[in-house]
């Protein structure tokens, strides 16, 4: 039995500790907002938060997150979700949309740590998230927009 806390909810699952968190989230918990893209931590589509930090769930064995707080796109806290979604919509970021939950989770982790990121900070935090539609210029603008929306926010 593995005890999990996902989006504030406790689960007890009879599952092998080696199974990647991504597939537990998708197949067992049936939260499908977290996407599979590569299975090797190369594309970022599976990005979730583990104890507040961005993590690639496709290479994270579920046993490693027992007793820790996992947040997926579905459970992103409103204080982050609202400004991010507002900015993403205002910049019309998504095209196919498949990578966007992962992009938003990476951006949320960046902005939590650094509410006023510079271009180099955005490069460093976001270059692990691939987008084949080429929405990168808009992702950059959306993150800058969140930073403007929340000038009063400070690092926790």
């Amino acid at each position, binding site marked *: 039995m593995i005890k999990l806390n996902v989006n504030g*909810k406790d*689960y007890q699952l009879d599952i*092998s500790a080696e*199974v*990647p968190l991504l*597939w537990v989230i*998708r*197949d*067992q*918990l*049936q*939260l*499908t*907002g*977290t*996407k*599979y*893209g*590569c*299975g*090797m931590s*190369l*594309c970022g*589509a599976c990005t979730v938060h583990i104890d507040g930090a961005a993590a690639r769930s496709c290479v994270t064995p579920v046993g490693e997150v027992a007793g820790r707080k996992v947040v*997926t*796109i*579905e459970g992103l806290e409103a204080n982050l*979700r609202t400004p*991010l*979604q507002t900015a*993403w*919509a205002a910049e*019309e*970021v*998504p*095209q*196919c*949309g*498949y*990578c*966007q*939950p992962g992009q*938003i989770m990476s951006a949320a982790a960046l902005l939590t740590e650094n509410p006023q990121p510079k271009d180099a900070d*955005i*490069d*460093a935090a*976001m*270059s*692990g998230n*691939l*987008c*084949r*539609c*080429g*929405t*990168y*210029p*808009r*992702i*950059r603008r959306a993150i800058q927009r969140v930073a403007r929306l929340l000038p009063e926010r400070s690092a926790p």
Partner: protein
Amino acid sequence: MSESIDIRRREFLKASAAVGGGLVLGFYIPLRGAEIAAAQQPPPAVEPNAWIRIAPDERVTILVAKAEMGQGVYTSLPMLIAEELELDWNQIRVAAAPAAPAYKHTVFGIQVTGGSTSVSSSWDQLRTVGASMREMLILAAAQQWAVAPAACQAEKGRVRHPASGREASYGSLAELASRLPVPQQVALKEPKDFKIIGQALPRLDTAEKIDGSGQFGLDVLIPDMLVAVLARSPVFGGQVKSFKAEQAGKVPGVKAVAQVPSGVVVAASDFWSALQGRKALEIVWDEGEGATLATEKLRQQYAELVKTPGTVARQEGDVAQALAGAAKTLEAVYEVPYLAHACMEPLNCVVDLREDRCEIWTGTQFQGGDQNAAAAVAGLKPEQVTINTMLLGGGFGRRANPHSDFVVEAVQVAKALKQPVKVIWTREDDMRGGHYRPLWYSRMNAGLASDGTPLAWQQRIVGQSIIAGTAFEQAMVHNGIDGTSVEGAAELPYAIPNLLVDLHSPKNVVPVQWWRSVGHSHTGFVVESFIDELAAASGTDPYLFRRRLLTAAPRHLGVLELVTKKSVWDKPAPAGRARGLAVHASFGSWVAQVAEVSVDKNGQINVHRVVCAVDCGRVVNPDTVKAQMEGGIIFGLSAALFGEITLKDGRVEQSNFHDYPVVRLDESPEIDVHIVPSSERPTGVGEPGTPPIAAAVANAVFAASGIRLRRLPMTAARVREAMKG
């Protein structure tokens, strides 16, 4: 399983069922069979009920027959209907149309999304659909009020009778309207009266794409569904000789192992278990002739073939004579590799196969072909096959497979398992699964007069035909020429009096397919690089050189003038950088790009900025056009700098994003898109942004370093090699 999961599953099924509900305006315009059969080009029947559902709560659902793969059809196509139907943008919902005859592509004759044609092929059709529905709602109101229809107006989802001050909402009129005949003829708005077309209205699919609720094929859950992965031949064309399922069957969670035509399927309760099961399979393959295939051998074969005359695709004047008499001649060989589409969402397909019906959930660009192909495998009639088009996590052509490969295989799996199943391709399966952009060679020859004027141009192309062997062959291969092999080369826009384009179409077992911009993905690079070579050989500025040769090509000239103005071409680039230019027409549109690059001492090319000008006729949604140019440029840049699929001993050497890199955010240039104002008919935007970028970058590298790169991708290693001379 927790209860919340069961609820979620039920909700999904309820939501799926609801797509068929709502108040449907139920009527069809009867086809005047004989008349239409007699006509050369039958006008498409106007069937408003196939496209529009008006609910009593005033929500209007517009069904879209084209796949939404990022290009924005879930917004631009509803805009066409909404313009004529006089809807408020906020009352519109969008849903995927099923596969049915009403949704056939007006040009291709089968339900498909491709060729950058969604807006252009729907432009008259969907505006007429919207106008027809508007007229019926007006007539319904007029009948209710016993007034003349001409005295009523439609506006923002309501019909008004100004003389009496009466008004009624569409929702309240829908039922009555549904019993009225569809007007035989409707007047479409004059462009000056457009309120919606031409506006950067917000996309209708954004909300579900930023909160995780959007349902892609991979996200589909149906009751009693197994999850399956397949072991496919490591060599194209190989077959299973024998296999042992015992160990795989012992893996916890694995429910079934079976042989299917494309390999061995392992089905389990979940993806991870299926994958562990696949690892435990023991398979002996009959690899066939493909086992000796190697990219290096193909390159040698193509390099020889390109020296011998091919089938003529275009001939003007006498190239041989003109070359013989030229003051200066140039010759160069260009090469581009096989490319994978590498959609972010790996291929997948859910199938529920029953005795008398088959239901499919997948992200597909080719509902019509998939429906027919699935029916053939299932032994059903096409109308017994339901296709639920989910959101596509990228398409780029891969999800319009002419053989419906990933759908056919999933139906075969469902047939073998006798249980609903979701087939998932891993990233490695997807990347090694073939259906690549072909490997292409081009030998270029040109002759210049003593004043630098080009006298002759020859392009000899070598590469596999995408169309041969598909259902499209009869329509698209003429006199041995697959039009997609030479598109962008045969219609050279430059005024050069002697022109020859010829083609070799060698065959091998590597499956090839259209990849965003198809033939233009190689000809755009080759033609626009070689014209730059001619400009350099004649000692002329690349912009001025092109301009002189484009005097009879006004729309090429239009984008060329705009892009050079916006990029301030006549002023030097910032220190350490150089600019390169390319202009290329494809899918009815004209695109010019200026890339600003630097090359560091390690051979690394950095693309800092791209300025793009596009002429795509009348613009439906300018923000969508800009987004497609941005996306097309970045997609093309991945191919220009990194993308390459190679084979050794018949095996694809790449497998995932570590050895098939694509552009990342920190490598992505600043992009500045400008649209040429136009009142011409709308043309394509999904693909035309891709073809020019590789040439614009290669030309900028030449301007920066004097190095002419003729082979893609332009990796740092290749640039370093070229630097050595």
